[in-house]
């Protein structure tokens, strides 16, 4: 059977997905990046490989997320695409009529507007990360709760307490104040969700109308409290797709599938052997001019796979451009 691999390496999580010929999900893997993208990709591939039957042939692979170029160098991706487009493609698969996509990941949050199955506008947090998963992660750690338990607690709350969501630090001082004045934990947890939603809607949407159906995806969509807060704020139901936490990987795998099927090209995939390779990354400062660019380099043994970071382009090596696959959208 022919399969397509999609890899999404983000700031917090690394997701891998295998799609079959029809674009259906065969298996997926969700793991924490923990600041080691290459290790995470290798680990993910290993886990997927252990579950596979031997008659599968990887026909194509794609990478997305903030480490997409690094990942592409490691796995030999056919398609490299940014996460905004990848997420939109995946949402369209599960909800063809989708008009608005809310995506909240580890360190970024985006909203994407679609019309007639085409992305017409998007916005991404630029100067503030208060409305993202890391915010919830932090507060959960502060409360001494595992993040997974946020969901149930938030659903139990009758109402949320008012917490300032504009700034992570101030939200924290508000939260401490509420704790010290004796509010129940679940109301504080739900209050956090509401603060995050308020911040998200104010900061990203900027008065643009939200049309249903709304799809809510990204790692934070696992939190049912967030979904409830969104629904209360918007006044209509919000759809959380079945593979909400690996949508980016699904999107880029779908794009790879279309690309390979339409062009008939052979894949550059380096095979599952790469899980055993040793990779080394290194960085140094270039002293060619006053910019002192920091150059990052990734090597497999003695072979340099890719290098980037210079403003003038003299060090750049490997595939550092996004794939021009406009016509397959």
């Amino acid at each position, binding site marked *: 059977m022919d399969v397509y691999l999609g890899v999404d390496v983000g700031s917090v999580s690394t997701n891998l997905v295998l799609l079959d010929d029809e674009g259906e999900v065969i298996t997926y893997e969700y793991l924490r990046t923990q600041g080691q993208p290459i290790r995470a990709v290798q680990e993910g591939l290993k886990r997927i490989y252990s579950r596979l039957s031997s008659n599968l042939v990887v026909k194509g692979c794609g990478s997305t997320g*903030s480490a997409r170029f690094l990942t592409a160098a490691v796995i030999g991706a056919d398609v490299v*695409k*940014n*996460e*905004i*487009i990848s997420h939109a493609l995946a949402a369209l698969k599960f909800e063809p009529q989708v008009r608005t996509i809310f995506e909240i990941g580890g360190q970024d949050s985006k909203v994407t507007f679609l*019309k*007639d*199955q*085409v*992305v*017409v*506008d*998007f916005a*991404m947090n*630029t*100067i503030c990360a208060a409305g993202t998963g890391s915010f919830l992660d932090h507060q959960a750690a502060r409360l001494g709760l595992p993040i997974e338990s946020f969901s149930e607690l938030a659903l139990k709350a009758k109402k949320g307490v008012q917490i300032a969501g504009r700034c992570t630090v101030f939200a924290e001082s508000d939260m401490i104040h509420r704790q010290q004045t004796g509010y129940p934990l679940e109301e504080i947890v739900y209050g956090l969700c509401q603060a995050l939603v308020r911040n998200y809607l104010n900061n990203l949407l*900027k*008065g*643009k109308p939200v049309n249903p159906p709304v799809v809510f995806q990204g790692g934070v969509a696992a939190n049912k409290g967030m979904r409830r807060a969104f629904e209360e704020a918007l006044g209509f139901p919000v759809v959380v797709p079945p593979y909400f936490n690996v949508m980016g990987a699904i999107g880029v795998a779908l794009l790879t599938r279309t690309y390979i099927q339409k062009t008939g090209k052979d894949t550059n995939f380096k095979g599952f052997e790469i899980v055993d390779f040793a990779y080394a990354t290194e960085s140094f400062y270039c002293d060619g*001019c*006053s*910019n*002192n660019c920091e150059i990052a380099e990734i090597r497999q043994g003695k072979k340099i796979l890719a290098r980037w970071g210079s*403003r003038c382009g003299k060090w750049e090596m490997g595939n550092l451009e*996004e794939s*021009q696959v*406009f*016509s397959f*959208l």
Partner: protein
Amino acid sequence: MLVSSPQMGNVHFFLQDLFERLGVDYLFPPPNSRRTVALGTRFAPEFACFPFKVTLGNFIEALEAGADTLVMVGGIGPCRFGYYAETQRRILQGLGYQFEMIIIEPPLAHPLLFYRALRRLCPSLPLFKIYREIRASFFKAQSFDFLEKRALEVRPVEMVKGETDKVLAQVFEELSRAKTEEEIVEARKKGFAKLEAIRTKGKPCLKVGLIGEFYLLLEPFANFGLERFLNQKGVFVERAVYVTDWIGPSSTNPVQGISNEEIARAAHPYLSHFVGGEGRATIGHIVTMTQKGFDGLIHLTPFTCMPELVAKSIFPKIQSDLDIPILSLIIDEHTEKTGFLTRIEAFLDLLAWRKNRKITPRSTFINWLSNKREKKLATYGIKRR
């Protein structure tokens, strides 16, 4: 006296030539680098905008390199830019530098201040000679802009990647050597011929307009070489401002080819008065560029820029009328190249996707709107010029 200035796009070509003609020693400002930004950020107020910080860094580096006179432009209107020169003077004095700051105010708004600034720069030259030299030098500076604009058209379709940049550097080199008016005209002609000779293929895949605050648009260091990045992806780029249009006294904007009045008229249905900086021009450019059939626009604004924020708050209304995609990006010293370019790439995908599905901006709406406005003006007995 060793004069220096901030760095902004091609402006140093103009200043170098001008000061050479006036017999003033000019120090090329050290090129913008991370150090420039670090210095500027360290000594500037935090909520000053990015251009303030970079230019302050330029000044510090110029003073370190031995300059003793700094030239900065002034300005009028609600934008804070008008008192940047004064603020920077005080900050630098506070740091203990010995220098003189010459502030060049817009000649039409403050003729006397402008005259005094000129006199301080060159006390002995007769006024008519200064005028003549400025005119000749300005003409040369305009030639730089015209050539750069032409390069923007050629680069997206060049056959050999990087050829346009090579040719352009060569052309600029030749032009900066030209002195008399005849030589300038000659060098300009040759330059155009050279750009024309670059082999091209096909058509640009998308047409994108760059709008927003002038410094960010003009200085490639500040916008991460956005123009070149887009051009290399085969995207045609039009920039809303050129150096000589910006510093020139006329309101006709010969390089850009659209006058301030036209821009204001286009902006009128959405913003009917001047809000400082390029606020109104940004709105006007959105309308005119949509009319010209652009696929999308990229809006650059420094963090805490008031005029651009005013303009930005009108975007949702314009977008619902015209259906033109606008990507608005805020730039300051914290902006990181990767995140910046990721958004640009996603935006290009969006534009290409729309184009594939034949969804185009509603340019006819503008015609309807301006017809409506014409009729309204006619009732007051006003005719369009």
